[in-house]
């Protein structure tokens, strides 16, 4: 067992933190407050290579392993980038681009992956429906086969980057009679007639990411837009969701390191009853709890990243554990961070209330905690 990062990985993490601190973080607070997507920062993530880290260099990526990719996500959070932009990046890279890369044809890869890596195109992924969330195999969006392609009808719900995406990976039933085995994955481009996105939903957290419905109304797509083969969509979705439950969690974990740093700084500076509140045991325990959460989460997330680098592509049990732990157990420490800041913690400027709101998504998105427990109990 080797828990160390290489010098190159540490240097890269340091560069990501410097980059994010200077180029992105000064814009995070405002974009969260206004609920606006930060196109400029997203483009910069592309220019710096973050959006395509784990893809091959000839497709516009950096040939990074999964550990390094995960480290970059953690670094974004650690620098203080808001959860909204981090989620937008995660959905774009892991839920959209990775599916095209992993299961698409050479033509599909060459057409989309380089432009997704650079940020020239923004990607999203549509799996959830208004009536099918946890029970996703009950989806009703239908892809009817015609001679020259497919006609999509139905709605997707809660789609990150939905209103701003240029490319969507969409899951739909090619065989209505079947559950899992009837699902196929498709690429749908923004301007395809019959395809539209709803308006951005006003959310509690991750506010700078835009979330909407995707609407398909007799939307015709060419047959080249099928990803992989018909009926293989559910397996792809599960592979996607595994990213959702591991690498995509890294910015949350890094975000807690940022929160801890804010808390330590504040507790040392803030005096009540004649001394810094840092000296009170009640405060020390809060800081310790946050650190415990961070250490445990890092171990879970990097274990999955490492395992992927060893060639074990699917780690459903570990991913469900990581997702559940990070989702449910971050809420206590995030809550403590707000309390520790007293009245200031409740105000926007201190960033801790944002972390609290952003973190609240973790037990819902990518499969709820209840579903994670179902998976865990099925696999033990």
């Amino acid at each position: 067992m080797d828990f160390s990062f290489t010098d190159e990985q540490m240097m890269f993490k340091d560069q990501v933190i410097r980059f994010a601190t200077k180029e992105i973080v000064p814009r995070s607070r405002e974009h969260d407050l206004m609920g606006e997507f930060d196109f400029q920062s997203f483009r910069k993530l592309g220019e710096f290579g973050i959006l395509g880290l784990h893809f091959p260099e000839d497709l516009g990526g950096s040939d990074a392993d999964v550990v390094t990719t995960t480290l970059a996500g953690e670094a974004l959070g650690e620098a203080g980038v808001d959860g909204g932009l981090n989620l937008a990046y995660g959905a774009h890279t892991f839920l959209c681009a990775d599916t095209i890369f992993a299961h698409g044809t050479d033509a599909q890869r060459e057409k989309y992956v380089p432009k997704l890596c650079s940020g020239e195109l923004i990607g999203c992924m549509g799996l959830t429906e208004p009536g099918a969330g946890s029970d996703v195999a009950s989806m009703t969006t239908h892809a009817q086969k015609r001679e020259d392609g497919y006609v999509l009808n139905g709605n997707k719900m809660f789609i990150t980057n939905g209103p701003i995406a240029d490319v969507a990976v969409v899951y739909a039933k090619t065989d209505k009679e079947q559950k899992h085995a009837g699902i196929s994955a498709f690429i749908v481009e923004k301007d395809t007639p019959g395809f539209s996105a709803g308006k951005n939903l006003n959310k509690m957290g991750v506010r700078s990411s835009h979330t909407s419905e995707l609407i398909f109304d007799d939307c015709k797509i060419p047959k080249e837009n099928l990803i992989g083969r018909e009926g293989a969509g559910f397996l792809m979705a599960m592979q996607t969701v595994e990213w959702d439950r591991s690498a995509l969690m890294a910015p949350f974990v890094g975000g807690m390191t940022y929160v801890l740093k804010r808390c330590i700084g504040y507790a040392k500076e803030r005096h009540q009853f004649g001394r810094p509140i840092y000296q009170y045991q009640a405060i020390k325990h809060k800081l310790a709890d946050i650190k415990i959460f961070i250490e445990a989460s890092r171990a879970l997330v990097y274990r999955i990243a490492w395992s992927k680098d060893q060639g074990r592509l699917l780690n459903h049990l570990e991913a469900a554990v990581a997702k559940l732990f990070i989702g449910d157990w971050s809420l206590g420490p995030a809550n403590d961070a707000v309390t520790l800041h007293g009245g200031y913690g409740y105000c926007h400027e201190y960033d801790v209330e944002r972390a609290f709101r952003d973190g609240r998504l973790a037990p819902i998105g990518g499969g709820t905690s209840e579903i994670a427990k179902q998976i865990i109990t099925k696999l033990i």
Partner: protein
Amino acid sequence: MNIIVCLKQVPDTETQIKVASDSKSIVTDDVKWVMNPYDEFGVEEALRLKEKFGGEVTVVGLGPKRVTESIRTALAMGADKGILISDDALEGSDSLAVAKALAAAIKELEYDLIFTGQRGVDDDLGIVGAACAELLGIPQMSIIVKVEVAEDGKTVKVTRPVEGENLVIESSLPALITTQKGLNEPRYASLPGIMKAKKKPLEEKTLSDLGLDAAGFGEGGRKMKIVELTPPPARAAGKIVEGETPQEKAAELAKLLHDEAKVI
């Protein structure tokens, strides 16, 4: 065009500096060491010139082994080669001694331009660049915010801000330029850049490798002695100017500026 960039490692500007118990040095235990920000401008400018004219960028650093990390960062940004001058006898050297060692290392190389920072953000002395140019017998242009090398690569035109105006200086090459904020926006090292840097040559040299006598270096060789380091005095609390009307407030402010602050 071959370019040399001198690199110093300094405490990260965010580090809380604490004076050590000897009152002559700082506590280095918790210090995060980074490339001097002015040297980053030098690396960036050198890389831009290389992209235009071709040639090689060599980074020359001096200090303990940890300086390797900053040289690697410069290599990851795109520099071609690194040299670290490292010798226990260098510990405690003053700026002149540092310039002597750098000049000795640079003398062995082919170069058209040398960049140094206009100062290190640690000691803020601003001596090394000028001293190095003197020792090498080449022109020196300091505190530069714009560098234009002629198409034929034989001369350089630089801009130095002076009291809100610009002084434009032209020089033959080789020459030494000290960098000022505003020269450029240094790039970040990308992951592919970092991976490539691993394989780039990084040579280590001692004083004797450079043909220098250790006696002229270190604490003993200092021409300039540090007498005492003191932290800046704690800033006094601000004052809110009182008054019923804007006129009253303005009058009060003028009085304070004249009588107390003594600035008008």
